[in-house]
């Protein structure tokens, strides 16, 4: 129920698509005014905007983010109200401004708003946007990039072994349509398998520490039989598409080399897989024994820029673990503490927020199910009455039966109509409330960003304490050495080596601190951006949800009002 509908694709060919399209801003562009410039791709939007300016309902503002025919030409608004009479009269003459009726609006399913690559990065201060949501289209430049994942195919693993029939896997066609100049072309496709996505995600995680990187789809621990099943493949295809679209929606990650390579490079994905990285680092393997014995070499500054990982970073992991334990027990006070109260508060808040989003998204699912059930049962009841109608008509002996059959028919067809409306309402509701689900993923991304910060801090702390212990050792050695008359050759040599190590470690420490600061900066920007986007997205979601409910409630009310009128000769007794 919460998945995207596959018939979305068929709606892409309407002119709506232009309106829905992604008006991305490139980084660094000055903020374009919210009023439209002369871009061809904006023509539809512009016409919608201009007609709207003479709308009589200035309180309703259009933003292309939700600019499906919902709000387009004001001819959709009816001036006379639906049959339901209001006590203070619905005349045009009255000073009471009738709210617009949404019953006549044609609700059509629109492409997932959340997947539209509208962008907003830092610095979007609109002077005067009557244009509500900062989300959308002040970014009216003509850049766009759209990703589609399709065409899953089974392929054979090429094996060098003599054993016939290697394992199979699924590849997906990833099509990019864009007019960005960094990509050499406007439309291109590559074939990738899920493993490639994992690689992409891992490389991005390394390169963009501190950023809120959208989480990739889960690896599924299922049997290979299930992997082949169409349902599973389809689910995965949808998930991949969502993931890639989110990536290109991110203002920074969109420009990453890793992503570009992923989307464009034909054939095998030219990104280092995680196992490759491990083996690459092992060419420092010659240092390994020394590291294992805790002497010589310090952590190289290259390595320091990455969090410690299993396998090659064995020693570093151990040290950092020791440090974090010491931190936890408050053994020795770490020289650099997470003093940033603001950060800690923010972290708390984010955690709370996440819990509430989880809760809300669960209740949203229940709501959707309840609406669905209502529609279904209403329809089934309608059908049962239609059968009854047919029966009475066939067997009618008396006129009273024919009259009753007639009443029943009106009733039944109305019930079926109402049922249809409930179901349409629901499919729209799903799309709106999906925003909640989307944000669950994004909250995970925030956690990842915060985790990057913590691990970078831990690295700094570890290095600092290592420095201090190295320094202490040097002092001891020097003290001991000075006691020996004429110099202690072996000790002096050791002191020199130690000083070398200290220097290297000092450098690493500085790098680590820089890294940590950078990550803090990234964190802050990302969280700001996320808060802003979330605010806009949630408001959009609410608006969409509410407008939807109003529109369909009006339609359903009309249906039943008609039936009530047609049966008004019955029931002289008041309810």
């Amino acid at each position: 129920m919460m998945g995207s509908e596959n018939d979305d694709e068929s709606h892409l060919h309407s002119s709506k698509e232009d309106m829905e399209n992604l008006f991305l801003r490139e980084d660094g562009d000055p903020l374009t005014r919210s009023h439209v410039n002369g871009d061809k791709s904006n023509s539809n939007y512009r016409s919608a905007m201009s007609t709207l300016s003479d709308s009589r309902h200035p309180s309703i503002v259009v933003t292309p983010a939700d600019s499906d025919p919902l709000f387009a030409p004001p001819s959709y608004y009816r001036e006379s109200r639906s049959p339901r009479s209001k006590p203070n009269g619905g005349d045009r003459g009255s000073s009471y401004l009738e709210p617009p009726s949404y019953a006549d609006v044609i609700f059509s399913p629109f492409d997932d708003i959340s997947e539209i690559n509208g962008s907003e990065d830092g610095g979007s201060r609109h002077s005067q946007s009557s244009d509500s949501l900062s989300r959308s289209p002040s970014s009216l430049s003509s850049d766009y990039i759209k990703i589609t994942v399709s065409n899953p195919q089974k392929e054979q693993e090429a094996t060098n072994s003599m054993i016939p029939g290697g394992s199979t896997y699924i590849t997906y066609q990833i099509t990019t349509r864009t007019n960005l100049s960094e990509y050499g072309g406007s439309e291109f496709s590559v074939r990738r398998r899920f493993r490639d996505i994992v690689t992409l995600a891992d490389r991005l995680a390394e390169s963009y520490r501190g950023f809120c990187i959208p989480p990739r789809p889960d690896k599924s621990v299922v049997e290979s039989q299930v992997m082949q099943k169409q349902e599973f493949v389809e689910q995965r295809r949808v998930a991949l598409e969502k993931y890639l679209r989110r990536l290109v929606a991110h203002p920074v990650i969109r420009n990453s080399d890793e992503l570009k390579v992923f989307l464009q490079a034909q054939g095998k994905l030219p990104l280092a897989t995680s196992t490759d990285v491990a083996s690459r680092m092992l060419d420092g393997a010659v240092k390994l024994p020394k590291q294992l014995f805790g002497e010589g070499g310090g952590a190289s500054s290259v390595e320091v820029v990455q969090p410690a990982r299993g396998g090659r970073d064995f020693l570093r992991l151990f040290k950092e673990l020791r440090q974090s334990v010491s931190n936890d027990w408050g053994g020795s006070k770490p020289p650099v503490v997470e003093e940033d109260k603001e950060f800690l508060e923010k972290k708390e808040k984010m955690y709370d927020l996440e819990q509430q989003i989880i809760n809300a998204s669960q209740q949203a699912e229940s709501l959707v199910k309840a609406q669905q059930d209502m529609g279904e049962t209403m329809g089934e009841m309608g059908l049962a009455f239609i059968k009854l109608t047919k029966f009475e008509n066939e067997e009618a002996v008396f006129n009273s039966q024919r009259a009753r059959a007639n009443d029943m028919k009106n009733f039944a067809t109305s019930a079926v109509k109402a049922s249809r409306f409930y179901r349409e309402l629901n499919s729209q509701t799903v799309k709106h409330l999906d925003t909640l689900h989307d944000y669950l993923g994004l909250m995970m991304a925030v956690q990842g960003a915060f985790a990057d910060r913590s691990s970078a801090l831990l690295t700094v702390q570890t290095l600092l304490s290592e420095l201090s212990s190295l320094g202490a050792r040097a002092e001891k050695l020097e003290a001991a050495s000075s006691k020996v008359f004429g110099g202690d050759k072996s000790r002096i040599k050791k002191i020199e080596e130690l000083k070398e190590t200290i220097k290297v470690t000092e450098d690493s420490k500085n790098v680590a601190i820089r890294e940590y600061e950078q990550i803090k900066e990234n964190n802050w920007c990302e969280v700001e951006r996320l808060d802003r986007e979330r605010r806009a997205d949630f408001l959009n979601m609410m608006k969409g949800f509410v407008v939807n409910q109003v529109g369909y409630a009006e339609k359903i009310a009309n249906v039943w009002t008609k039936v009530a009128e047609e049966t008004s000769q019955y029931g002289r007794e008041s309810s």
Partner: protein
Amino acid sequence: MESTTEQPRNISGSMQSPRSPSSQPYLSVSVTDPVKLGNGVQAYISYRVITKTNLPEYQGPEKIVIRRYSDFVWLRDRLFEKYKGIFIPPLPEKSAVEKFRFSAEFIEMRRAALDIFVNRIALHPELQQSEDLRTFLQADEETMDRFRFQETGIFKKPADLMQMFRDVQSKVSDAVLGKEKPVEETTADYEKLKHYIFELENHLAEAQKHAYRLVKRHRELGQSLLDFGKAIKLLGACEGEPTGKAFSDLGTKSELLSIKLQKEAQQVLMNFEEPLKDYVRYVQSIKATIAERGTAFKQHCELAETTKLKEINLDKLMLTRSDKVGEAEIEYREIKAESEEATRRFERIVKRMEEEIVRFQEQKTEEMGVAFHQFAKGQARLANSVADAWRSLLPKLEASAAV
């Protein structure tokens, strides 16, 4: 046993518009004030039955008695016995589920159904003259208890024993006469009617099933709106402005609508699903009448056969100038009288059913019309509240979004 066929008076009851001047005969009944009496397993509900009338057969203009469900059952059974051919109004079911038996909803539904039951009787041209009705409406509780106990007691009344005997007798004569198939009417119209009634029950039962489910759906939607509203409010508390306020408003509206949905669920139950159930019960009552007619027809046929046989026998005896003629003649006359009585009974049933069917169809068209009307009104009202509630949020949402 049965009252002679009088010209039915045009008595108005409480179900019609109360415009009757006091000179016109009227009989109006209401069943009210359910009260739980007794303890534990023996607990039951009692109702106040108020009768207002100006008919001379009744003891005065107003009478109030206390009755319980089994008293209503007694009345129905008596009427069924005595007024064969008439579709006796149905009673609401005895509830099997213990827990539900004393819920406010169930009690109210039952009270309403019992009220309708008595009033239908009071409005029926023949049934309204029943002595049993008068007993039911006027007797004090002790008398009523006695009557009721008689009916449900282990010892059957003599009349019942006679009936059982006759059934055995007719089975025997079947065997004697070499008939194995039961005797049934085979007129085309009656066949059509029977087929109609049996099919109708199936269709109605299905419609009623869905109507009941629809009530549940209303409740479920109400509940989910409540939960959703709460969750959204909590989410709003986490967010700063303006999202926070917007969420909070949304949540409040959602909770409000949840209440409306629960109310509508109750309305649909009382004003739509219950009439449908009543319709089903009515059809079942008609089936019982059809069964009665079948029995009556069989008796009429068999007694006619037996009479013929006796006649033949008598003629034979008369020809042979046997001294058994006298005896035979008496037997013949008795059987003939019984046979004519059985035929009369059967024909009365047929005639009544013809009238009843017309009444039934008209009544049901009216009642279903009302039910449809109530349902549609309720749904329209609900949908309009929903639209209004959500619509009221829009200006604020717009304002928040513009910030």
